[in-house]
């Protein structure tokens, strides 16, 4: 896996300054993922973690199926990187510090902190996340003085931002009218709590939460 060829990008640090063509290439993959998610009625966020011109992690939001509100696309992709490292018995810290995250929406505060904790040095993103953004929109976790929370990271914002915002808007619009009425289970059968759509309906705005996270 660790050929001289793949090592070079990391060795000379050029991955920290992706060329326009690199940036467009990876971001267009992220946008394709976001579009696919939107078309299947899911939160339109796409992200990938790139190391040495290899995609080590690809994520989409998995909040609904896991009932874990922190399963954002970035967390899913980070787990894949950790898995990749453990299979190859590589130190995740050494790999992560040479990874770039490409994501269609600014990471939320939780994800921004997770990226810090794993020492990811660079995040390229599309639109701002006005509700939860951790790279300046709500808080700036990316550059805050937090000596015990990994390392600060650099951001390249605004790549195809309008497109990313439009996808989020489309998602919000189609979401609300489609949500089925909550079923009140009186029989004690079936999964307690019902489906997550029930929850979404009960708590106005949670769909949006998942969306812009």
């Amino acid at each position, binding site marked *: 896996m660790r050929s001289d060829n793949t090592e070079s990008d990391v060795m000379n640090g050029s991955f920290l300054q992706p060329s326009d063509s690199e940036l467009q290439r990876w971001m267009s993959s992220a946008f394709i993922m976001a579009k696919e998610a939107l078309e299947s009625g899911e939160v339109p966020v796409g992200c990938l973690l790139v190391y040495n011109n290899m995609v080590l992690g690809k994520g989409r939001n998995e909040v609904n199926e896991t009932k874990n*509100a922190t399963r954002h696309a970035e967390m899913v992709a980070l787990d894949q990187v950790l898995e990749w490292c453990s299979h190859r018995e590589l130190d995740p810290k050494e790999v992560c510090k040479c990874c770039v995250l490409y994501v269609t929406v600014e990471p939320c505060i939780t994800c921004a902190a997770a990226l810090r904790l794993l020492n990811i040095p660079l995040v390229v993103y599309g639109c701002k996340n006005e509700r939860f953004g951790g790279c300046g929109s709500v808080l700036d976790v990316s550059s805050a003085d937090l000596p015990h929370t990994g390392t600060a990271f650099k951001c390249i914002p605004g790549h195809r931002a309008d497109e990313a915002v439009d996808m989020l808007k489309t998602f919000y619009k189609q979401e609300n009218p489609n949500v089925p009425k909550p079923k009140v289970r009186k029989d004690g059968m079936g999964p307690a*709590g019902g489906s997550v759509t029930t929850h979404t309906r009960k708590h106005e705005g949670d769909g949006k939460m998942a969306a812009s996270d």
Partner: protein
Amino acid sequence: MEPETKKRKGMESDPDSSWHVIPVLSDEMSEEVTLLDAYAVPITDKRQTSRLVKDLSVVHPLADLQHIKRVRACKDKSSPHALEVIVCLVSDISISAQTRRPTLTDLLTSKDFNLKGLGEPFLVRIPARAPLTRPQFERASLHWPTSFHEDKQVTLGLTGQLFTSSQQAKIQEYMTAAVEAARSGREEGMDAVGAAIVDPKSGRIITVGHDLTRDHPLHHAVMVCIDLVAWAQGGGVYPYGKHPACRYTVSDPLISSEESAQPYICTGYELYVTREPCVMCAMALVHSRISRVFYGASSPDGALGTKFKIHCQKGLNHHFDVYKGVMRQTCEELTLLH
């Protein structure tokens, strides 16, 4: 999976019986009183008071200072006049008038204003913002009388009277579960941080967990507990079989059917954690809609009071109450084990 706290009542002879629950309030609620320079004038003819207040509110409405009581009783009892009234802020009049000692006509420039009953202006300092807590109110009132809409919960919290002794015992019971989890984690070589999530309606502990960062760098105790709640609700991401002290209770279907549905993730639940959560965990609690957080020891990058106050961060759509200092000494001793 009943938590073991009951079996271990012996643990209650906690060395640290002197702890106090301290609310972690927003910056606005904890800040010092800010003051503005203003001109006040003695009311030399008491009978003019209500007319003066009415006329002044037209020419100088003090729109951002609704908390200020316009008239006060004169502090100096030997004074010939009994009342004093705020005319305007220093910043309301021209710079040239500010530099000399302004006269009444500098403050009330309209020829139509009836100056009857007013003495000569003098400088006062008045509170810039409405007090949000009783201590702020008391400090503000030293400068000028101020109205105050008291939040009784906050006052009780600040005076340490919010929780009854039986509630305090419950808090200790839940934190003890978190402390025991932290110790179990420590035995596995993890950081000594533990947490428990409780449903206060039933009093049941839903999950107990501890730090697992040796297995996964993001598995702080709080993240573990959030995922364990997901497991308890039929979801979940990571397996915890190797860690017996990380556990959850599936809610009784007979009970949950009564209440129609489980809450959305952590809605209505409380978290007890030995150490102040970091920014990742604090925001994860916002995403999970936790209702209250109790922690023991502060941490240097903590996000519920130390570096940030995520629980009352402007711009976020969910806020919750935070209390610190629970079993403080025991929890601080755990952090020394790192």
